[in-house]
């Protein structure tokens, strides 16, 4: 009888591609719990809105493009969840939905679906809603409210809002936040981006699960810290400036979740280092000279444009001798 054919190697690791996405979704759960402690059930519903609208738009796009629905690999849900986790808890439900739909329909599917997108869809979705609806996006509720936010959209008026650290930095001058409060997360900000200590713990968890790369996060944070120390926007010394910059807005969230998107980030370690540095540079430039109080998403899109080149460039630098030697022989 004939036996089947297979190609070497015949022993493979059991890890699947969707495991990384499942890890990211698990990592988002503590952040949602933290936010719901302050603001009630609304933040969780916003994240779920993002996920559901991303899944629905991807299914419709796949049907339209007549390809197999690829929702099961988890990348769609992650995109929707990230967009949902980056909006303010006070935003209407159509805001994360609009961001997620833009991310899938305009950035992910036209480029070829999962695994082939050039730009991070979640960052692009955030860029779209930052441009169009910055009013809705950047009004944050006061964390000292004590009562949960109303779940319906039309009951939102009358909630006391507070300016986030990012807005205060953008205006300049003395800042009202003390580093301890920043680490504990007791300040207004996007749903997933305020719990700084939890974010750091999540970063360690994802690093152990091999879903993020230290070669991206550490150079990124280091570049942001150096730029924040050398060109402080907050008055009160460079340490305070570093703490404020790194904990305000969604810089840290982007460093853990958005920058480490495996499809758009480089794969070689030196390329990843360059990518982190470049992304940090762009983020701080966007903060200093940009129009919005938080321009991280634009910086990530800019860095994504360079990621393939940086990847090959990093490898090329390390293997210059081998390549030149080969050229001489050939």
């Amino acid at each position, binding site marked *: 009888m004939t036996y089947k054919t297979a190609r070497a190697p015949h022993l493979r690791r059991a890890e699947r591609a969707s495991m990384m996405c499942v890890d990211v979704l698990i990592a988002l759960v503590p952040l949602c719990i933290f936010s719901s402690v302050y603001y009630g059930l609304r933040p969780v519903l916003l994240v779920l809105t993002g996920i559901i609208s991303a899944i629905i738009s991807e299914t419709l796009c796949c049907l339209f493009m007549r390809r197999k629905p690829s929702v099961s690999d988890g990348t769609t849900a992650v995109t929707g969840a990230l967009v949902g986790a980056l909006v303010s808890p006070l935003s209407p439900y159509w805001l994360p939905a609009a961001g997620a739909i833009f991310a899938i329909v305009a950035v992910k599917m036209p480029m070829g679906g999962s695994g082939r997108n050039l730009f991070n869809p979640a960052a692009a979705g955030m860029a779209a809603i930052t441009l169009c609806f910055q009013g809705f996006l950047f009004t944050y509720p006061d964390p000292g409210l004590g009562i949960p936010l109303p779940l319906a959209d039309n009951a939102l008026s009358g909630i006391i809002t507070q300016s986030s650290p990012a807005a205060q930095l953008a205006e300049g001058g003395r800042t009202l936040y003390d580093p301890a409060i920043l680490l504990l997360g007791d300040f207004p900000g996007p749903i997933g981006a305020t719990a700084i200590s939890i974010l750091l713990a999540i970063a360690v968890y994802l690093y152990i699960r091999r879903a993020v790369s230290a070669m991206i996060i550490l150079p990124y944070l280091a570049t942001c810290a150096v730029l924040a120390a050398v060109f402080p926007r907050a008055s009160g010394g460079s340490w305070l400036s570093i703490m404020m910059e790194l904990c305000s807005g969604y810089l840290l969230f982007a460093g853990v979740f958005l920058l480490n998107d*495996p499809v758009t980030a480089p794969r070689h370690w030196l390329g990843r280092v360059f990518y982190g540095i470049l992304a940090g540079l762009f983020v701080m430039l966007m903060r200093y000279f940009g129009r919005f109080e938080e321009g991280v998403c634009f910086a990530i899109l800019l860095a994504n444009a360079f990621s393939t080149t940086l990847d090959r460039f990093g490898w090329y630098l390390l293997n210059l001798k081998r390549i030149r030697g080969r050229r001489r022989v050939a």
Partner: protein
Amino acid sequence: MSKFTNRGVFLPLIKEPAASRPIEDITPPAQVVVPMLAGDGSNNQPVIKAYETVLHGDVFGQPVQAGGCPIYSPVTGVFNSVRNILHPLLGTVSCAVLDCLVSKGENRKEKSVEKLTAEEILELSFRMGIVDELDGILLASKLAAGRKLRNVILVADASEQEPYCSAAWSVLNESAEKVWRGLELAARTVRAKKYHIAVKLEKGNLKNLKGRISDNGLYQVKGKYPARVYSKKGGGTVCRIGVQACLALYLAAATDQPPCDCIITVAGDAVANPCNVRVPLGTTVEDILRFCGLSQEPAYIILGDAMTGITIQSTDIPIISGITCLLALKNLPRPPVHTCIGCGRCVRACHANLLPYEIMRRLDNMQYERLATLLPDECDGCGACSHVCPCSLEVTSKVLEAQDAHGNIFMKWGDGDDL
């Protein structure tokens, strides 16, 4: 090299229960199929006519063109017919079918090998047609190449870093002294100052083996697959040969007998009795599997070990010297196939510091002129990149395909862009 920085993968080792069992001799097969292709690639013709008997170890085939290696009969048997077989490793080759009468030869007395010179050993290994089981290359050509190098480190590679194979360990277990003497002979031929047997064993086995050979004769291989089998200190070029080849060299020198059998690990979840078997060269896969017994109908039969083996479709393939492992697998679990998500695990796994995913991408997009810069020729096909890929892509075979594309004149291989 620390565990974090050296590249490669940790492979699960599935050598039990075959490794702890002694070598079993296969029941004599009814027929053996001897390829008429000698170790150096020369075509041979049988020297006897049909239905004549040939004794174990006698010259069976002479090379068509002068200067080639002869072929020896692995069994005592009757020459039946000639058949053409498509062998996965040799290609289409004409093979002589022998009806086997007695599969073992008589034991001859071993004589001293101290007085043999390097040239005599080289000529002996060529005349006996000894083939290295690691890669199927003639041992004599490897030794001749080693003679031309300076500062050679000669390694008998028994490290067996792939999951299933334990043939070299069983050979060492049974006859370590003879292997060591064979290695000394080979070292005399290449004028090597440093030579050792590379092993990857647990402490107990290692100690046991050290007691039988000199202390410096063993080198414990450390690190991820595929690890280095020699120490980088002191420099030198490495020349790797197999332990069965060393044993065959010693026996050829001491008893004037050509290698007639080889030791193969038979393993896999479809095999009822996994063990190391000594089979005469030319035994078909079918006979071996029947000897070891199949507990369930296998879906895949693999010639070679799990990381670098090739699947075969039919079982009437004869065993030649380059094969050390035979797997019969029912389940081959793999993650579901997906487009490359760019996780970068293949880059971390590659011990040759290549970018496997980029080679695969450029090959798929038919950008052949940009393949040269990525150095696909440095790949040795270890399979680590495909092993770790969570999208279950055929990365290794794509890189090897890119290697083949290098010689293909129909693909414009040139100096594309620099990056």
